[in-house]
């Protein structure tokens, strides 16, 4: 309760952290905002080549590039979110060892800063959509819950990693590997129908799967995930986040001693 109150009192700090993340990221790279679009575009191209051309995977009549681009954009939110949150304390070591503020703000702001990248990427998608069969209509709004679930998963996992990262730096090396593995078990680059029927519900047990499918459905009108899988994802996301906060509160006490 006290924690919630402190978080609210430091609302301004959250905003500052968020803008700082963004401005540093965009100010220091020569291509700036272009990077944000370039990365999913490159991945989408590779996926289109490997799955769309080599493996001739079905994409429900949509251009394969568009199909994999949607998956990649949603995936970015999770992958970048977990990565930025996971390293947030180490990045701001001086702040953590020399000042006090509700520590959770750091991983939260770090993960949330990815939302801007995603928005930029979605804007590009909106520009492209009219040339590929137009918008999906109201169901487009389903992108919001999809992104929300992904963000919560990123916050939960990222906060856990951030807490562990302080103690054991090895986690920093492990995060990209983990993300790499996850991207292949989640239907980001390929359609769910490529997964053998018998394994499909196992694939949907991965809480990342449903929100990715939902986002793609919202953007280009592919098959939505079954309702149970969405509910499952949302439940896992909330549980993970609460658990992460719980663990974090225990680690928080000794944060400055270990960093």
């Amino acid at each position, binding site marked *: 309760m006290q924690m919630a109150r402190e978080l609210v*009192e*430091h609302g*301004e*700090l959250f*905003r*500052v952290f968020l803008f*700082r993340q963004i*401005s*540093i990221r965009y*100010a*220091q790279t020569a291509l700036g905002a272009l990077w944000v679009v370039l990365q999913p575009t490159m991945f989408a191209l590779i996926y289109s080549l490997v799955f769309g051309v080599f493996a001739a995977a079905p994409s429900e009549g949509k251009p394969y590039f568009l199909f994999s681009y949607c998956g990649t954009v949603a995936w970015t939110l999770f992958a970048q979110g977990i990565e930025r949150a996971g390293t947030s304390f180490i990045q701001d070591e*001086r*702040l*953590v*060892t*020399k*000042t*006090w*503020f509700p520590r959770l703000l750091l991983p939260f702001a770090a993960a949330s800063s990815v939302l801007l990248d995603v928005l930029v990427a979605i804007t590009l998608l909106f520009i492209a959509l009219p040339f590929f069969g137009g918008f999906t209509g109201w169901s487009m709004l389903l992108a919001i819950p999809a992104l929300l679930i992904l963000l919560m998963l990123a916050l939960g996992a990222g906060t856990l990693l951030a807490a562990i990262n302080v*103690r*054991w*730096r*090895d*986690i920093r090396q492990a995060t990209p590997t983990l993300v790499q593995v996850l991207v292949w078990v989640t239907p980001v680059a390929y359609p769910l129908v490529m997964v053998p029927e018998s394994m499909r519900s196992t694939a949907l047990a991965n809480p990342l799967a449903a929100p990715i499918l939902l986002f793609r459905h919202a953007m280009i009108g592919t098959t939505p995930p079954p309702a149970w899988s969405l509910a499952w994802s949302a439940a896992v996301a909330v549980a993970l986040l609460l658990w992460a906060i719980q663990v974090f509160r225990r680690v928080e*006490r*000794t944060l*400055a*001693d*270990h960093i």
Partner: protein
Amino acid sequence: MTSAISVDSISKCYRIRQSARGKYGTDLADDLVNLFGSIVRGRIPRSSFHEFWALRDVSLEIRPGETVALLGPNGAGKSTLLKILSRVVRPTSGSATLKGRVGSLLEVGTGFHPDLTGRANVFLAGAILGLSRAEIRRRFDEIVDFAGVEAFVDTPVKRYSSGMYTRLAFSVAAHLEADILLVDEVLAVGDAQFQRKCLGRMDAVASEGRTVVFVSHNLAQVRSLCRRGIVFEKGRLSLDTGIDEAISGYLSSLGGSSPSCWIAPPDHAREAPMRFLRVGVAGGGVEELAVRGTDAPIDLEFDIEIDRRERSAQLAVRIVNDEGLPVLTTAPEDVGLDFCSAVGRRKLGVRIPAGLLAPGRYSCLCNLHIPGVVSFDLLDGVPAFEVQETRTTTRGDDHRKGVVAPRLDWNLE
């Protein structure tokens, strides 16, 4: 009366792990090996911690509006207490209660991000204090004005000089209307003029009824700002009293640990007929090296205790530069002064004229002796001091090259 700060038997223990590979620090691999080993052996892992108690059972109360100095040698626990008060570190046991908004400045540029501009950093630092944007904006001009960085508010602070950096950091902490201001050693940097300005500001903060807790090794600063002094020794509170008493208590607890002001430990040269009690650079701080400009004279002071008069005993002081070269040797006898004319405590002083010594570091060799016969008390290396160039010149770095650097009389006919 309610306290602004209430510290209730706080202890802080740092557990420093000695890992299997003989280095300090924690390693996931080591932890896994330990865990695995203990599972195999079926017992709890052997503790390989080295415990260090930074604070032990410290309790104190500070009332609103008090200005308190925390004194003590390095590692005595001052900074740890300040960190606990600013909530950066949690105590191992005990608790601290602070009433009101706490502004802390634990290090120069605390919380500044080098890539952000001065402006953005002011907002960042303010937000850490829990202020709203409107509150920070209201104070913004005053902060920037005080720091004297108006022309650079939109420059990333990584391009700031260390002086500008410090000034802005201090200014933010001192202007953001915290009820309690915790300041650690930050005024060690920055020029004398700015230090005075900062002290003035802290004075103003205190006179507004806000509480200031200050850690500094500069005792002159401490004396001018604080009313109360708390001395720490090895993590324990050893003295809590008025500032003057606290400073002298602190000084006497130090013994001979300072380069610019040496104080005899108990039983120093006890069996000799005379001995040094204290040698120092006049006005020099205790833990820092006294620094004098080339335009100022340097006064050395010697407190000597004489139990028995010794005919032909002499005091000799040799000044040695940092290359080990003796620059000069001086003695009271040079001017016909007999320091040994009476028993008891004697206070001698000698003045090195302004502009004699070239810029650099010096230390002294002080000898109470009968030349060629016996040395009663010999101190090597104290007092030490540094001479800094104060006049600027266009002649480059080597323009004062030489062992001494007096300004000689030139004439032109």
